């Protein structure tokens, strides 16, 4: 499995993502944002960070960078693209995923472990994950997922929610919503489910001694089931 992690100016989780992908068997390449061609990849990852200093709106500048035209073409032809945190923000700004990520409801940067409930396992990203909830890490200022009423209806009708913020038993409610996201949404797919965007960082949960291993579960499934 070949993967590519895109590094934008201001990305800071690109190395962690590279380490995580390699740990679970991907042959990963780090690609600079100013490149035009994408190497042959089974998965393209847009990592977390603060691309272009979060100027204008988070992810807005990065979504127009040179490599993104290739990423957009790759995604639209069915290629697997995953965006984590700032990567998720870039995907919505590029129009590859619905909605937008607003400033956190309480105006605080949030950096902590949370639980997410996997909404649907009938897709390659979560197929063989036995657990219903995963403990992952979030670190963001703009993770408050928002979309119009029409969009949320479409997202639900097409079963496009990937993850909900929940408690460790999978209870989804206001008390377990860290940032004000509409319906507790922590991650979404496109309609075809080859593109996934999520605020939580699985790459930060791959070491049993310093984090947890729920990220490892995610990556093990990814290399097994990615088509």
């Amino acid at each position: 499995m070949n993967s590519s992690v895109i590094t934008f100016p201001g990305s800071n989780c690109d190395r962690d993502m590279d380490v995580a992908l390699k740990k679970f068997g991907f042959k990963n390449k780090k690609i600079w944002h100013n490149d035009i061609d994408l190497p042959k990849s089974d998965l393209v990852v847009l990592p977390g960070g603060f691309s272009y200093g979060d100027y204008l709106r988070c992810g807005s500048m990065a979504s127009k960078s040179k490599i993104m035209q290739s990423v957009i073409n790759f995604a639209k032809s069915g290629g697997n693209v995953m965006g984590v945190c700032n990567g998720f923000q870039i995907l919505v700004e590029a129009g590859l995923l619905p909605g937008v990520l607003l400033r956190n409801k309480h105006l605080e940067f949030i950096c902590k472990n949370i639980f997410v409930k996997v909404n649907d396992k009938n897709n390659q990203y979560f197929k063989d994950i036995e657990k219903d909830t995963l403990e992952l890490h979030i670190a963001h200022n703009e993770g408050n997922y928002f979309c119009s009423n029409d969009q949320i209806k479409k997202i639900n009708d097409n079963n496009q929610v990937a993850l909900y913020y929940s408690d460790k038993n999978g209870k989804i409610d206001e008390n377990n919503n860290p940032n004000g996201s509409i319906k507790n949404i922590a991650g979404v797919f496109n309609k075809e489910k080859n593109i996934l965007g999520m605020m939580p960082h699985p790459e930060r949960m791959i070491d049993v001694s310093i984090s947890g291993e729920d990220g490892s579960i995610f990556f093990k499934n990814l290399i097994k089931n990615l088509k």
Partner: protein
Amino acid sequence: MKISIIITLKKDVLDPQGKIIHQTLDGMGFNNINEIRQGKYFEIDIEENDKKKAEEKVKDMCKKLLANLVIENYKIIESQ
């Protein structure tokens, strides 16, 4: 030609910054405010003398980059 635009959040989008500014002003004694919504302002100096053409170009910029139409509206407030 210089074109000024403002970008504001749509009505049903939560504006926590506006809310906090409102609360702070309230705490300072400005008690008669109903609501505050924060926006963005841009001045674009464009080499185009035809007002209509210049405004069309700026509108295109708004749609493609300056505003996110899921949550924001844009408005040209001055062209000179």
